[in-house]
């Protein structure tokens, strides 16, 4: 049996509480507050304590999907990525780079936000980048 305690940071509000994911055989069993964390000092709120539940939810998406004739069809990553890249390229050629917008996410990591705006600016060629800071 493999059991681990993996340090993480709560992904709900902006406080940034420290926690541990208790995993048993590759599945998260519970969320435990990190006792010595500088921000949260071993305490969590109701959302933090249950952080693993949304991760374990059976409602999670499990593969990419492409809408065909109004219905979602499961796709491979290669297909989904290629279809998306082709559509974006077409639209950029036809309407210019500023016809595309990217909404990055306050839920993604710094690294991922960096890549998302790099994608918009360097690849799409637009500064139409925003996220839900206002909402």
């Amino acid at each position, binding site marked *: 049996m493999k059991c681990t305690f993996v340090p993480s940071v709560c992904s709900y509000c902006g406080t940034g509480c420290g926690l541990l994911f208790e995993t048993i055989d590759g599945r998260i069993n519970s969320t435990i507050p990190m006792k010595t964390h*500088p921000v949260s000092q071993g305490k969590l709120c109701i959302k933090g304590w249950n952080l693993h539940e949304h991760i374990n939810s059976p409602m999670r998406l499990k593969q990419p999907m492409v809408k065909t004739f109004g219905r979602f069809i499961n796709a491979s990553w290669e297909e989904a990525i290629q279809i998306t890249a082709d559509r974006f390229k077409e639209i950029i050629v036809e309407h210019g780079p*500023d016809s595309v917008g990217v*909404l990055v996410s306050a839920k993604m990591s710094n690294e991922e936000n960096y890549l998302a705006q790099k994608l918009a600016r360097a690849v799409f060629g637009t500064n139409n980048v925003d996220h839900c800071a206002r909402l």
Partner: protein
Amino acid sequence: MTNSIHGIEKSNCIFVIGSNTTANHPLISRRIMRAKEKGARLIVADPRGIQLSRFADVAIRHRLGSDTALLNGMMHIIIENGWQSSAYIRERTEGYEEFAASVKMATPEFTADATGVDVEDLYQMARLYGTSKAASLLYAMGITQHTTGVDNVKSCCNLAMLCGNVGIPGGGVNPLRGQNNVQGACDMGGLPNVFTGYQPVADEKMREKFSKAWNCTLSNIPGQTITDMIPAILDGKLKALYVIGENPKLSDPDWNHLNRALKELKFLVVQDLFLSETAQVADVVFAASSLAEKEGTFTNTERRCMKFEQAVEPLANTLPDWKILSQLSTAMGYPMHYANPSEIFDELAALTPSYGGMSYARLGLDGLQWPCPDAAHPGTVYMHKESFSRGKGKFHAISYQPPAEKPDETYPYFLTTGRMFAHFHTGTMTRTSPHLDIEQRDGYVEINPEDAAALQVKEGDMLTIISRRGELDVPARLTSVVNPGTLFLPIHFGESAANILTSSEAFDPLAKIPEYKVSAVNVYKSKPPPERV
């Protein structure tokens, strides 16, 4: 936050305005209560009677949207009584004279009239904040989600500078950010006008730097904000949208307006953990891995960049966001091949002065607070110690503007929106958590028992709420947390989506933030559904 979360405990006076901290930033409310228990004074200004109000030395319920009037009124009293910090104003700020002249008009009588707050309470608030050295001001969306959002924030800064509270431990102007990495998303250039670290896209030098690093040409035209993108879609200017980890169908103002816009799009891609309301109408859905299935960093509200580790393998055929983005970029003809997030972090740290001294090795489990410009820098616990980023702190003369909508004959009630403690934002994550779902299964609207009595409504009865934009049915929760004439609707529940009622036209002209906190509505008891025979 200019200061740090633990620094709140060092404060002698805490002024909370527009933040229901115990519900929305519970572990920050811990620090507030600890400061209070050590003897700090607590002032709470919120249109609702929130949990923190019970412990406040002064708790007021000012009229929705009257924040600048309230703050100006407080500053008027502070100046009248000579409680301002003259040496600080002289040495560290500018624009004081013009500002002071503008505040002169905000007499206690005028303020009481505009805010509905008792003159004596105003005086006590001003006295407590004005005479306690090291006073900390905390605010959240109650300050910013207004047509006067920027003015409100500037007024908070005016107040803090007036009393010399910026740049000292235990002081500061401290916005509490609502999403775990909203600070990071801003820092990383997730905004239309700046690259990472707030380096403007319109600045030739910055463009050159990024252009060289990324080996491409870059547009010098600042892009559109989310609030501008929706009308741009309807005008036919924006054709495709790539939405990552957001659910604008519930979070954006004016549901009807947005729905029409999304239909107009030629191409919509949504990347999410769940088939959110927005993902349902997408052309392509990318299934992303969750927080526990990847590593990376988040930057919290006190600018602390913290590492999170991978706990389990990605679920089924999902991919971490950084892999999806890299693959898409590569497919678009711009190869991105990163071995791991650490490589991406090193690239962004090299381009972002405030993150310049950070690396995975240095972050550890405690993280580092930016600015952290070089590898020897210990990080910054509180900002603006010697001087402000722009040199001198600037006072802004702000005059009170009422909200865009006020109750009238047709729409006689105020409606305000927000979060409740057991759920988060659009509920995509929390409503799929069994323990959070038990705590609050369905949407509700808070209504004062007086209003409920007038409408002959009991707890749990269905109410129909109508605004100029739309209408919805939602069960009533009777509580004196809201004043008579005011309703509160949580934003988490798709079946009673607050943005059916809120406006897409009322937003701050500068920040483009929608006025979620104030709408005019009417309410009546829903007609029971026709009985089935």
